[in-house]
């Protein structure tokens, strides 16, 4: 059964930093949202958690492109992650979770799973 999801409004355009990332808190945990104005679409969302260190730091990494793919470099041990697929460029076996993201007026929304226990209780 596919988990139910909803589009969570996490922040506004004013919170974004061009060519860089910010972190937001979602029901699914910490997520990094990147805004690369030179791309179409310009918004990317991946897990904020660096799989190599376990620390929540990916939004604070440097963004850029390698061989045409948009990437962020982990600020701790410098591995690169593809912002679209979440794939780690240095280690095939490692990837991070990605989230669909869209711009709704002034708001940035992420598609995250609905927290089951909460919905049931509600």
């Amino acid at each position, binding site marked *: 059964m596919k988990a139910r999801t909803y589009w969570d409004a*996490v*922040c506004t355009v004013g*919170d974004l*930093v*061009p*060519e*860089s990332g*910010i*972190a*937001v*808190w979602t029901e699914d*945990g*910490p997520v990094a949202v990147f805004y*690369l104005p*030179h791309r179409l679409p310009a918004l990317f969302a991946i897990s904020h*958690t660096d799989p190599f*260190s*376990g*620390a*929540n*730091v990916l939004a*604070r*990494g*440097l*963004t*850029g*492109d*390698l*061989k*045409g793919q*948009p*990437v962020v*470099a982990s*600020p*701790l041990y*410098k591995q*690169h992650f593809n912002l679209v697929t979440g794939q780690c460029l240095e280690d095939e076996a490692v990837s991070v979770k990605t989230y669909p993201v869209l711009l709704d007026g002034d708001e940035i929304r992420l598609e995250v799973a609905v927290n089951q226990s909460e919905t049931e209780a509600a």
Partner: protein
Amino acid sequence: MSKKTLIVVGNGMVGHHFLEQLVASPAAAEYDILVFGEEKQLAYDRVHLSEYFAGSTHTDLAMGTSDWYTEQGIQLLLNEPVTGLDRDQRTVTTPKGDYNYDELVLATGSYPFVPPIEGREHPHCFVYRTLEDLDAIRASAQAGKSGVVVGGGLLGLEAANALKSLGLQAHVVEFAPRLMPVQLDTDGGALLRHKIEELGVQVHTEKATTAIVAGEEARLRMNFNDDSHLETDLIVFSAGIRPQDALARSSGLEVGERGGIVVNDQCTTSDPHIHAIGECALWDQRIFGLVAPGYTMARTLASVLNGDQDAAFTGADMSTKLKLLGVDVGSIGDAHGQTPGARNIRFNDEQVGHYRRMVVSEDGKKLLGAILVGDNSHYDTLLQYALNGIALPDNPETLILPESQGGAPALGPDALPETASICSCHNVTKGDICGAIDAGCGDLGSVKSETKASTGCGGCTALLKNVVDSELEKRGVEVSKDLCEHFPYSRQELFHLVKVNGIRTFATLIRQHGRGHGCDICKPAVGSILASCWNEHILATDHVPLQDTNDTFMANMQKNGTYSIVPRIPGGEITPDKLIVLGEVAKQYNLYTKITGGQRVDLFGATLSELPEIWEKLIAAGFETGHAYGKSLRTVKSCVGSTWCRYGVQDSVGMAIRLEDRYKGLRAPHKVKMAVSGCTRECAEAQSKDFGVIATENGWNLYVCGNGGMRPRHADLFATDLSDEELIRTIDRVVMLYVRTADRLQRTSVWMENLEGGLEYLKQVVLEDSLGICAELEEHMDGIVGTYQCEWKTAVEDPEKRKRFREFVNAPAQKDPVQQWTTERDQRRPVLESA
């Protein structure tokens, strides 16, 4: 099997090199090794003896350490000369006792020849060979005004330079009609004389000293054979060397007519159990007064003791390249054209003071020898022609003509045969270098450490680099200087583009000169270049996305995603009140607190959102950012200096604070560290820093390009006795040149090693302004100093910038769940499972 005993007499350069070779070979296991040294000190680099006057210590010059001897199981008996040798009993005698040997190696070097002149025993007469000699000269010079060197050869001129550096009016008295009679001809000698006199050293040729008597105006008077005389406060004899063969003579070993222990190609004397190497050995009627042939003998003997039948010493090249009193002098092979039929080609430009002479074989095909005065830039090429018998071009004169007059470019490394010797100190051929590259060495540094090439006298550095670059290129290794896939330029080239075109943003630079959108290599590099050029706040909107996280958040990220904070404590000086503030802030935010190696306090464990709050408090108490996160000036460490220390001669803390305030915030290719010591005891360990300053009676000595860390390097002495202002100007220039020309993440040490021409070149550019850029460098630095701002102060005052420090922009109260803590030694520390 009981071990045999091997005794080495003499702990000099060659004796030490021999031991290094031997212990690295299988034969080492067969011997108990004993070494006797007459001098008090462990073997040191005599070639660079004069640096002792420029501030180097025995430790700097030492070839090894006593720990090394202990580790190798070698018994080192210093200050214990061997006084007797009994070949029948196979024993040597010292003042402390008798010792048996199975094999004996004589590496006793040579001693300075002092001509039998009446009065030469006078206490202010010296020779120039050992550290003790130099101590005595220094003491004598202190109360003197003038000094004479007897002998105008290579060592004599070096000694004259030393006297000059001790502040004496220096004279050179030479018996022959010209200077350096062995290496130079009349024209070359005349030009050298002219240049040296210009530097204020007085040269007296064709003078034989007949007596040394008490002087009237100075301590001594020298009487000459032509009835003239010269008064001086001290005399240094440098009239040649004699092999130290006393033990050989007294024990009946075969010695040469004019001295020297006769050895065969295996470096063995007339007694099969006794060997001789270095300057004491006479091979084929020749003594070799240079270190490279001595090293070759040492290697030969080590091979012989390992049973290598083919090992043989086959003579050595005595070509020399030197800088005497700042004047280039080179002499190659048959410099005087003594080979029958030899022909000469001369180039003499008195205007600029360059003299070059080539000695060419009768058929004009081979270069036999050469003399260079005033400019050694042709030396490497000529030496390769001479050593390797490479056929000369049809118009051989083009080799020594200036390029403007049709001169040929230097011999490319490709033209050299595999057997060409590149480094004679360590006997490294082009073939060896190719071998090292094939075995995986991918850059100059690794070739150096693998082959040892260029780690002796250093004369081969430029040639080595050319060979390595060309071989790497041939193997298709990109000796590409491209920063990354986005910029086909080196950092230096990018710096130039930014500066010259006035580019102020990354976007402009990549649009005009790059491709794509950048990455974590080029963005911080360009960020640093922009900061070095224009010094705008690193959190200005355009610059934010360029910075590494540490620069973006102006703190150092630790493994759990929290940060550490290092406020600036200039020179390590801090008031009790400020120290209390640090303690209070640390306590309030529960920060793990540690003293750093750079005399500051590091506070660990702050979350992103706590950073601006903490800095608000620190700034209120008068702290500034310490830039511990940046590739920029870190600390200027200092000792307490003359204010408190009974040995101090200058206010080292005051100077450290001044330097730290001047250079704080400057963005550089890598971090830059400095230190200031208040006297030569060097308690601040300045010589392990990029810029080390050591106080002298007269001012400051500046050392540059040292570092600690992964690959430690002692800083090199750069300039001496500088005033406060001179010191700052000199550092300004070196720092700025480094900022402009170094590669990304290149420390000053590597930068300098990779500069063509190395330290000497750097000195020319900075101290003599050979490129005419010093004014611009200073101006650039003044501009940066003038626009300094504490980044944290600017950041906390700007609500927009503070927004960046929200941990989760939509949940200010949310704590990062992976940041878990435990307590250890009364402080908080992180627990992080997956790390």
